[in-house]
């Protein structure tokens, strides 16, 4: 038996807002969350640009033990999750007595690893790193901590798929629920934002160096783009089976109708046209929808020269005839990496709820490939019934999710 999978809760803590309202506002107004971080320059970064995400103060919110085990991306994920739980109307009592799972996308925890090893080197002893350190250093730190804090009893692990992590986490959750293995899963993505986590990436020369105008640096699809801007935060998407949601009396925000995926099987970092196209095709087929039914595509488009071009071509081969609206929210947020697949679902959900397509800011001149797309350079007030969200990552990992608006009959 196959179950329908619906979204009942969303939460966000990002560079463009600390909650849904703030973020919706930023999306509507094309507000950028990019800054120039001088510390990175001192550190030796080629580009000091980054999304700015303020660390929340969780004193008096969480007890000491919970706090010392959380790295910053865990804190971000905590903030987005308590918001999502509130939206989904989950009380702790319910979580204590039912099997609710957690699947988050995360693919690093560099800062705690580096800081703890520095201490070991300096003090010549491992015990000096303290009792919280090991829990912060693991890739599964977010799910490890949140499942402890919220006393979750269902599926519990972290999904690592580079920049598609968040999307794959939701897709995997969707698959579990669709085939009846779980009734409800808290999905999401989290990304640390600090100089320790992005140095190796900067080494590839992949970041924009438009440091004189940080807000204008992230330019997906624009002819004059010169690279991505790293960013981060936490995003949560709570999904459940339709029966479960109806039984709980939860408000249904949308329905996930497809999870398409593929692997390029080619270069580790250079994108291909075929790989993403396969993932998109798979999602359309799975959903049983025509390309004309997609109203909006939230592109992966990170503002790298090659990446945006190949994605544009992939989109065009499938949607060329129907030209749905396309925008990349990374123009405002920067590339949220492990979080992005999940956060972009949240951004698209907000657009769907409020009836607008967020602008792809800094899109001033198209290039050869993006010229073929219907890119929303400015915000557009319009109805979205169905959207497609793409996420692609190093290693050629691709993920495409299709979400349909929920109409109460």
């Amino acid at each position, binding site marked *: 038996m196959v179950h329908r999978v619906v979204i009942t809760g969303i939460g966000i803590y990002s560079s463009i807002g600390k909650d849904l309202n703030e973020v919706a506002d930023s999306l509507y107004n094309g507000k950028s969350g990019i800054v120039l971080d001088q510390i990175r320059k001192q550190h030796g970064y080629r580009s000091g640009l980054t999304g700015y995400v303020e660390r929340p103060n969780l004193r008096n919110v969480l007890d*000491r033990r919970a706090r*010392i085990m959380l790295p910053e991306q865990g804190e971000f994920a905590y903030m987005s999750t308590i918001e999502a739980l509130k939206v989904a109307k989950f009380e702790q009592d319910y979580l204590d007595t039912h099997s609710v799972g957690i699947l988050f996308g995360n693919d690093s925890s560099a800062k705690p690893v580096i800081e703890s090893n520095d201490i070991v080197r300096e003090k010549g*002893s491992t*015990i000096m790193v*303290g009792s*919280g350190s090991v829990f912060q250093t693991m890739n599964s730190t977010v799910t490890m901590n949140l499942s402890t804090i919220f006393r979750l009893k269902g599926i519990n692990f972290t999904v690592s798929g580079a920049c598609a992590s968040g999307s794959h986490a939701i897709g995997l959750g969707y698959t579990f629920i669709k085939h009846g293995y779980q009734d409800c899963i808290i999905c999401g993505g989290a990304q640390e934002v600090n100089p320790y986590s992005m140095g190796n990436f900067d080494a590839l020369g992949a970041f924009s160096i438009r440091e004189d105008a940080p807000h204008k640096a992230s330019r997906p699809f624009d002819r004059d783009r010169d690279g991505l801007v790293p960013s981060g935060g936490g995003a949560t998407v709570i999904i459940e089976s339709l029966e479960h949601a109806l039984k709980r009396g939860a408000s249904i925000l949308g329905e996930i109708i497809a999870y398409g995926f593929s692997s390029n099987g080619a270069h580790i970092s250079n994108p291909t046209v075929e790989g993403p196209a396969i993932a998109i095709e798979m999602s359309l087929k799975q959903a049983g929808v025509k390309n004309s039914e997609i109203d909006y595509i939230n592109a992966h488009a990170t503002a790298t020269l090659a990446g945006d071009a190949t994605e544009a071509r992939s989109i065009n081969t499938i949607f060329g005839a129907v030209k749905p609206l396309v925008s990349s929210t990374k123009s405002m947020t920067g590339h949220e990496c492990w979080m992005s697949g999940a956060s972009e679902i949240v951004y698209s959900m907000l657009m769907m709820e409020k009836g607008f397509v967020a602008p792809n800011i800094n899109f001033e001149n198209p290039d050869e490939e993006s010229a073929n797309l219907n890119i929303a350079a400015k915000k557009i007030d319009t109805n979205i019934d169905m959207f497609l969200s793409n996420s692609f990552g190093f290693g050629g990992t691709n993920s495409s999710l299709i979400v349909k608006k929920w109409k109460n009959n």
Partner: protein
Amino acid sequence: MSQEEIAEKIVPYLEEEFEIDGKLITPEANLRNTLQLDSLDYVDLVVVIESNFKFKIKPGDFQNINTFSDFYAYVETALIQKEQENILNAEINSQRNGV
């Protein structure tokens, strides 16, 4: 260092690390209960001691430490021991270098 001096030095750090009111830290108070220590917290207590007094206490040594007073006595003893070791090592090293 006397036990009073030890207390004076370490109580502020205990207050900060374990987030409790310093007034609760009295010599007769139970260490475990006052600081609400679970098994993992002993690691952090070791860090506080090492940072302040520069000697390593093993989590196993806490077995016989019940009150803060026991704790100060333990630190006092360890500091005396450390002083002796430092003297010996310094003398041995200087003689080795002199030879």
